[in-house]
């Protein structure tokens, strides 16, 4: 029976039986895509198995990669108006060489409670880490900053396209040193740091969750000719 199970797992594209300790939270978009696909299959409706219409991209495999990075604790809380600093790291080893990347979306969920009575406006900055972390170094050496935006009110998960960055990491895994996330109090608003700000930043750190939604297309399973034929 074990041999048969192994064969079946291989067929599903898995190396061995997985035993996750806890299930990762599944974002609503993945649940919706699953339900739409299942409903179409049950109804016998035709569906292009190599196109994700909910995301508007080609692909037949969707992965939600969890963040395996860590928070950087500042020696002095809120120094230089910093609320939170975190290294985000995504292990992309599961993506096979033959898979073509069609979408990579970074999702930052700050937790709706974090925004409640936000008070000061916060600013979020994201940059690609380009040098390995050195021993004794407080913060990683950030490279190109690719996002800078204000957080004004509850707005659900923040999304950023990382297609080019992930494409680069995929072709050269050694370059995957992660992303550097900083959340700061906007200039001029953090003067006289008070209890409220400390509270917001603590809540933010507690409820913060990052993941990377990656869509890939396996050309062996999605040949252009077969897509046209369908």
């Amino acid at each position, binding site marked *: 029976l074990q041999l048969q*199970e192994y064969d079946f797992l291989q067929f*599903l*594209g*898995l*190396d*061995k*039986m*997985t*035993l*996750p300790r806890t*299930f*990762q939270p*599944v974002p609503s978009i*993945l*649940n919706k*895509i*699953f339900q739409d*696909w*299942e409903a179409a*299959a*049950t109804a*016998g409706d035709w*569906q292009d*198995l190599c196109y994700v219409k909910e995301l508007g991209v080609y692909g*037949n*495999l*969707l*992965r*939600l*990669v*969890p963040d395996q990075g860590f928070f950087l604790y500042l020696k002095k809380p809120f120094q230089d108006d910093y609320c939170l600093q975190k290294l985000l790291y995504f*292990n992309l*080893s*599961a993506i096979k060489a033959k898979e073509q990347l069609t979408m990579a979306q970074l999702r930052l969920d700050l937790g709706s409670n974090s925004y409640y009575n936000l008070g000061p406006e916060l600013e979020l900055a994201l940059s690609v880490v380009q040098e390995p972390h050195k021993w004794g170094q407080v913060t990683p050496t950030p490279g190109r900053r690719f996002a800078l935006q204000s957080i004004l009110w509850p707005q659900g998960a923040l999304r950023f396209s990382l297609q080019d960055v992930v494409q680069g990491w995929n072709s050269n895994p050694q370059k995957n040193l992660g992303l550097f996330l900083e959340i700061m109090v906007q200039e001029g608003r953090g003067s006289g740091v008070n209890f409220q700000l400390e509270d917001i930043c603590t809540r933010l750190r507690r409820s913060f969750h990052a993941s990377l939604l990656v869509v890939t297309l396996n050309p062996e*399973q999605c040949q252009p000719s077969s897509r046209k034929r369908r």
Partner: protein
Amino acid sequence: AAIPVPKVSCKNLCHRHQLFINFKDLGWHKWVIAPKGFMANYCHGDCPFSLTTYLNSSNYAFMQALMHEVDPEVPQATCIPTKLSPISILYQDNNDNVILRHYEDMVVDECGCG
């Protein structure tokens, strides 16, 4: 020469048999998020020459059944899936990635002789 019509019980004729496998019985509920199980339907039954035209058969199955009647060394037409549908699985892998993927032609919807 006329071919004698063998007596075949309707029960033994080619048709779809429903089978549901609950992932919990396999312990797979620990890594499969959805669905709860898999419709492992299968096709089984006889494809006698006299009834091939009624059993959702291909023309080839009709010819093969005819040949089998004439020469028993030719294998009988077999009961096979004629309509399949895909399934989608949402699961978590060893790296804690949540994966959603389609598997084409996984569920047997209809059977016939082929």
